[in-house]
């Protein structure tokens, strides 16, 4: 029997149709993957199922009965819970308090703390967590917090769990134990709806998977029915055999930017790099190795206590991103929501924000701004219905392209790209790669920061590796393999 079903679901936003007559069913106790490019409608589907959004038309059926969720609470009451990508917990409360937040067990109107701890303990055990229910949530790792979220969902007797990119923030080992947990939930009859970009994971964990493209359901497959590259082709609607543009031989090296002996208290102990004209330099390292903070210090977004920065062999004083921009250095942030974009502002306004001086003479020339933004839209294939709509209405990949366009506007000589393909679908990824490639081709010095080693190896001719706040090594050409980078990043001594 189908436990949860959606019929002819349509979600219409002012700029785009996020879902277009999607009909899908989820069976009892199955793990059902939902994959698709960014903007394909996965998140919208999840939000409708979780009661965050209401569809424009179409229906949701639970056990054959049509249901309408006006809120997350409604969905929870029907046993559907969402495990958020950005965890929705309170750091200062205990684990047990988080599990029962909003549904605390009481006795005569008072918190029944011991009963709460006891029940939390059972729930934590059932998700394989080993920490105490009394521990402060803030002391847990991200993986631990995720387990708390799952326990919280189970405390509401959730029978259907929606997981949105649950492994994005986990290590390999944590991912493996999450998959074990999913197996065990499945055996208890819990349905898991699993969204991910990582095709290898989807292949490993899902019984069935549905592919969305541009808001339309392309196909639902059984496990093993398609391999990863076939899945990828179905997602983008074209063949994605060649991911990375071919590398180019550098002939003469002209050093543009040199950062030496940087120290940022708490993050960077000793980091140096130099980047040449027309080069793509990789900056690799594990999460927390200080890559981002090093880059932020280079553009003056973060204060450094020591270190020298030279541009064209002249020492420069850069104390803010504004100084950096004047020196021709641009930093495309990894954190689009926090530091990369001003979400309530329009696509056009975000495009011209860093280079607004060019459009003020002295009054803002709005038609010129618009023309410039339209130009980037064409050049970078930004999919946006209304360029005057807030940029928050765009999908992640398109937001990322605007984020890059904002800096290309300033015609930088050095472009630092921090995780430029995070949360971006395969199609847009490829476009971003070829964009970086052509920028380098035209002489821009590019620094690519990434956690994806395949990306670093695929794109960069030279790689600098950071570990624990220090640059620990440099790998060139064919020496820059994933294994070699990993050894440096993790500090394994080569035998």
């Amino acid at each position, binding site marked *: 029997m189908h436990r949860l079903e959606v019929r002819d679901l349509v979600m219409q*936003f002012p700029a785009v149709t996020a879902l277009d007559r999607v009909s899908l069913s989820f069976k009892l106790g199955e793990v059902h993957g939902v994959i698709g490019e960014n903007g394909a409608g996965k998140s919208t589907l999840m939000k409708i199922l979780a009661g965050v*959004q209401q569809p424009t038309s179409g229906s949701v059926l639970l056990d054959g009965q049509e249901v309408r969720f006006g809120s997350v609470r409604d969905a929870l009451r029907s046993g559907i819970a969402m495990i958020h990508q950005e965890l929705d917990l309170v750091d200062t409360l205990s684990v047990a308090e988080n599990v029962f937040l909003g549904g605390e067990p009481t006795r005569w109107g008072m918190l029944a703390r011991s009963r709460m701890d006891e029940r939390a303990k059972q729930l934590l055990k059932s998700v394989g967590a080993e920490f105490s229910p009394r521990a402060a949530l803030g002391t847990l790792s991200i993986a631990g917090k995720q387990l708390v979220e799952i326990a919280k969902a189970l405390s509401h007797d959730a029978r259907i769990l929606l997981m949105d990119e649950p492994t994005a923030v986990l290590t390999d080992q944590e991912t493996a134990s999450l998959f074990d947990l999913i197996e065990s939930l499945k055996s208890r009859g819990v349905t898991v709806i699993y969204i991910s970009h990582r095709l290898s994971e989807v292949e490993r964990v899902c019984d069935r998977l549905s592919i969305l493209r541009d808001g339309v359901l392309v196909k639902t497959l059984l496990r093993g029915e398609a391999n990863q590259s076939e899945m990828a082709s179905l997602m983008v609607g074209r063949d994605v055999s060649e991911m990375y543009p071919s590398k180019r031989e550098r002939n003469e090296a002209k050093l543009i930017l040199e950062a030496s002996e940087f120290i940022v208290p708490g993050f960077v102990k000793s980091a140096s790099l130099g980047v040449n004209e027309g080069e793509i330099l990789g900056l690799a390292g594990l999460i927390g190795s200080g890559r981002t903070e090093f880059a932020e210090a280079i553009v003056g*977004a973060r204060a450094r206590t020591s270190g020298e920065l030279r541009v064209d062999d002249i020492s420069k004083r850069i104390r*803010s*991103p*504004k100084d*950096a*921009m004047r020196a021709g250095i641009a*930093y495309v*942030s990894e954190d689009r929501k*926090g*530091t*990369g*974009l*001003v*979400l*309530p*502002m329009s696509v056009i*306004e975000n495009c011209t*924000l*860093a280079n*607004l*001086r060019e459009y*003020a003479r*002295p*009054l*803002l020339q709005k038609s010129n701004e618009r023309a410039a933004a339209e130009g980037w839209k064409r050049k970078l294939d930004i999919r946006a219905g209304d360029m005057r709509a807030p940029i928050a*209405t765009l999908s992640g990949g398109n937001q990322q392209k605007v984020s890059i366009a*904002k800096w290309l506007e*300033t015609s930088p000589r050095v472009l630092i790209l921090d995780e430029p393909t995070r949360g971006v679908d395969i199609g847009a990824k490829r476009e971003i790669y070829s964009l970086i490639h052509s920028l380098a081709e035209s002489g821009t010095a590019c620094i690519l920061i990434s956690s994806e080693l395949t990306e670093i190896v695929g794109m960069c001719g030279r790689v600098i590796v950071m570990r624990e706040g220090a640059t620990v090594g440099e790998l060139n050409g064919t020496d820059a393999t994933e294994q070699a980078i990993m050894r440096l990043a993790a500090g394994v001594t080569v035998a």
Partner: protein
Amino acid sequence: MKKVLGFLAENGVLVALIALVIVCITQFGDTFLQPDAIRNLFSQASYIGIIAVGMTFVIMTAGIDLSVGSLVALCGAVAILTLNKLSGGDGSESVSILLAGGAALGIGALAGLFNGFVIAFGRVAPFVVTLAGLAGFRSIALVLGQGGEIRSQTPSFQDIGFGGVAIPGIANQAGQPVVVYWSIFAFLGVALLASFMLNYTRYGRYVIAVGANERAARYSAIDTRAIKVWTYTFLGALVGLAAFFNAARMNSVGTGSVGLFYELDAIAAVVIGGTSLRGGKGRIWGTVAGALLLTLITTMMTWYRVDTNWQGVVRGVVILIAVLLQRGSKANDSN
């Protein structure tokens, strides 16, 4: 229904203003439709209005300025003291008055610069910094006025308050021409200038960016601290301007009483006008309408002979309704 609510929330202040005007016309047609009654309405709105326009920018940067009421007293005191100092000399009275105006604007801008500097570079919350200003500026004014009123010795100073441009062909019931006061021109001029700054200058765009996401603005090569300092300085100068007109009208400044609760009225006008207290979103015409609406309500309450003790309740209710309506529109358009 959603659409109606959305429209009301977006343009609530205009709808309310028009509704009240209609009520006034039907209820008090004879009193309300007099040219000098309408002139007085604008005149009363102008002092708060000038300040509220500057406050709109401050609130759009997600800031607040509680010190404006006390600053009105300080700027007014400085204006009249300057005038009295100069009036004994040989210079013409109009030059003295101009200098007094310059002093009021200068002190206002200086106080705003101080607020902005501490907020931007000292990284202290605007609420706290300007709360200190609320206490401090009033205190300095009281010291200057020895706790009481400072009177001007230049009778022609009142021309600034009561002078203006007579509208040809329009007379009041007594047959005298109706004079549109300078303060009204200042209010509308300041509003036009501000509206222009907001929509057509880099500064305006940066104010929105800083208010919507200060970190992203800084990462986008915007000097966010300079934007904040300018914003508080601009407000301070406008407070000086309002104080100058206020002092001229009375030809004196009661250092303990003038400007009391102006900060609340100015903030109320901004919020009623649809500017978000969380920053990043605002409009000048809304603030202008908000200031007019508040003044009209006060006037109507006088006409209805509402006990002055109760008037605060009515104003409070109006502010709450305005904010609740905005909340409603946010819930609707959040996708």
